[in-house]
């Protein structure tokens, strides 16, 4: 099995086209609080929208203004310019920018382009551990999604198939975690840039094909040369990051990313979906209970603890906290996280960025200085 496609980080729609050519539906989703297992179980290919390589977004800027996160604008740009040709779009209210990207796409397709696509926004609670009512609400939201998808596709959701699909996604999660384990080595065989490419391609392929590619990569991993150039082990945290080139700039200066806390990276794969009784309830528990990003209001302590623990486990020398401009969601973690990291001797570099790599030179200088400061 050729796994090289895992490293093509650009938005790749070949698999989507092939899928749709079989008469099957492919639906885009924004934000990782959308339960993709349900799509796949209904023979719908879930395609996570991203904005990789989007260097300008003039059409989306007109709709969302430049006072919006450029990741969201980039996704809208790709939606508008046909980079994504899909049968619909689903989002949860991950953050307001994700929601507005969806709103603008829906508005244009319904009112201007007069397309008959599937649009659905599901409400995902922002409090789970401290709110005993959240699960029941989210369960109903998921059931609403299932009902609408059944109407759209004419296919009933089959519980047995859903169980099988959950198993497949758990397999993906386990394989990705296996890849992350490789990064614990003193001289890992995979860079942060390459690892991000692998996790990004998750949204471009049907689950079966992705599993095969991951297995092939892992089988071959022992043949990869250890990376000798890393002078400082880094962890990447912050806003939605779908630009491997950004990591490359830092790694070219001697940094080596060995883990991350980003939604296009490790976080969607960190835990398995455990089936405990009702399938939809199990899905709800999984999606709300994960430590994923600060969109949940009652998980900040756990999120920050997870970052600190990961630093210890992966022998991290420094954390790179990148904040997308106009991304509030990931904007406020330093107040409590920085002292916690300081307590374990891990400095944090905070950088602002845009979706496209506009400030590579400046970033390289800051990265070089940071690496020099923390290298051992």
């Amino acid at each position, binding site marked *: 099995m050729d796994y090289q496609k895992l490293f093509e980080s650009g938005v790749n729609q070949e698999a989507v086209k092939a899928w749709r050519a079989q008469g099957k539906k492919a639906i885009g989703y924004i934000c990782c609080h959308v339960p993709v297992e349900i799509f796949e179980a209904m023979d719908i290919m879930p395609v996570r929208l991203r904005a990789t390589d989007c260097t300008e977004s003039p059409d989306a800027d007109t709709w969302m203004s430049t006072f919006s996160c450029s990741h969201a604008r980039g996704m809208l740009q790709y939606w508008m310019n046909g980079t994504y040709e899909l049968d619909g779009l689903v989002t949860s209210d991950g953050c307001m920018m994700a929601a507005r990207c969806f709103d*603008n796409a829906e508005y244009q397709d319904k009112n201007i382009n007069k397309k008959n696509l599937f649009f659905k926004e599901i*409400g995902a609670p922002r409090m789970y551990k401290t709110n005993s009512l959240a699960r029941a609400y989210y369960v109903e939201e998921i059931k609403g999604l299932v009902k609408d998808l059944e109407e759209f596709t004419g296919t009933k959701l089959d519980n047995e198939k859903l169980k099988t699909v959950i198993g497949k996604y758990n397999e993906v999660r386990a394989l990705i975690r296996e890849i992350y384990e490789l990064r614990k080595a003193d001289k890992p065989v995979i860079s942060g840039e390459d690892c991000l490419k692998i996790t990004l391609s998750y949204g471009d392929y049907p689950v079966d094909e992705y599993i095969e590619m991951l297995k092939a990569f892992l089988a071959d991993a022992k043949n990869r040369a250890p990376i000798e150039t890393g002078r400082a082990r880094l962890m990447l945290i912050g806003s939605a990051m779908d630009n491997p080139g950004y990591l490359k700039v830092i790694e070219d200066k001697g940094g080596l990313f060995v883990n991350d806390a980003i939604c296009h990276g490790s976080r969607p794969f960190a835990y398995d979906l455990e089936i405990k009784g009702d399938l939809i309830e199990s899905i709800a528990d999984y999606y709300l209970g994960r430590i994923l990003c600060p*969109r949940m*209001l009652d998980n900040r302590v756990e999120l920050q603890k997870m970052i600190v623990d990961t630093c210890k486990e992966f022998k991290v020398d420094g954390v790179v906290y990148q904040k997308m*401009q*106009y991304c509030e969601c990931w*904007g406020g973690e330093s107040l409590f996280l920085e002292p916690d990291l300081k307590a374990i001797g891990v400095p944090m570099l905070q950088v602002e960025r845009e979706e496209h790599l506009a400030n590579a030179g400046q970033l390289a200088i800051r990265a070089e200085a940071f690496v020099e400061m923390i290298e051992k």
Partner: protein
Amino acid sequence: MAKDTRLEDAVMRGEMSVFEFCCQKVEGQMERMKERNPDLLWTLEIQSVMWHNYRDAQKSGKKLVFFGGPVPVDIIVAFDCIPVYLDTVPIRLSPNPVLTGKFIDSAEKYVPQTTCGLCKTYLGTLLEDQYGSTPDAFVYSAVPCDSSRVVYPNMERLMKVPTFSFDYPYRRDERGLNYLADQTEKFVEWMEDFTGKKLDWDKLKEAMTNSNRTYELQGKCADLRKHKPCPLPGRMLVLNGTSNAMACFPEMGDLLQKELETGEMLIELGMGPCVNGEKHRAALLQNMLWSSSGVMDWLEREYDTVAVMDAFGFQHGDLYQDLDNPRDCYLTMAKKMQNNPMIHGAAGPSENFVYLVDKIFEDYEPDVSLFVGHIGCKHTWASAKMVTDMIQNKYGIPSLYLDVDGIDGRYKSPDEIKAAIAEYMDTVVNK
């Protein structure tokens, strides 16, 4: 004569609390008003009550409950606690960019510069320990926006006081309504634990009755603005925001009663705020120009244009129906939270925002459309084209887009704002 800045200087040095500053400021304003314009004293009384309540609550043995976003304030009041609406602090300080600047700069050490100025100011005030009182509890909801979602949980951890947070459903539908009503019932239990008292339904009824009076009167005042010429000045729209904090206090109803009587009298006299007669009617499509509210006076003076309504949504609030039926009341509270003014398009799908603005154009017939957008309100910026396209297509009115910071006056001076609006008025409206 040089401006007396002793109070501001004391705040800047950290020697005076924000609550004390606001009390002394409003006292000074009232003294001057008594001398120069005693007939308008009523416009300040609500401010006086509110800030003195905040400052003196704990001295009089009452618990101080800070709150952010839409929460059932009536319940807090029914437990004999004083609710402190966080937004009132930045709004009150905003005419002075030096003061807001102090707290905003402090907050920007920890949150991005692009965070909403309201949130940065109340986080900064906490970081500088300058509220003047330590809250006894904190209640917040998961709206209005991503800025508050970052700042409220951080404030919760800084305050270290009992905290209750409402999860706010994205859509305004029946499921969301029941979800919020169920949380409201849990909130009552939480308040009982926090205060050690059982809910006194009669007290809650009193608060709800006051609240009904406030929103009925606010609706009537809003209706007055449909009249041509609009009898009330644009600046009075700013007062509406006080109802988020004070709706269930009788003083809020008293203020609106006076506003209503004044407006009715002006209609009878055929008068409005534009001395040369009303030529244009403006709709404000986004946040209020708190830091430069004088711009609305200037519009009335220079362009005979009155701001008839804003898109906060203070037109007609939800009213309690059956005050003896707890579930019905909790559902109304949930509805109030869902439709809470100042949330409009922010907390849910853009279609809510588009609908609200459409209603304004239908009901108030403005011919000037100003999207004078607070930069912190990124989610409304991201809906702006849908809103302004609707206005253009349905009403044939082109909109002005202008970025401002409603709280941080350092972003754009009133003169810069006026220049941009003047250009639009001269080249588009009066061409």
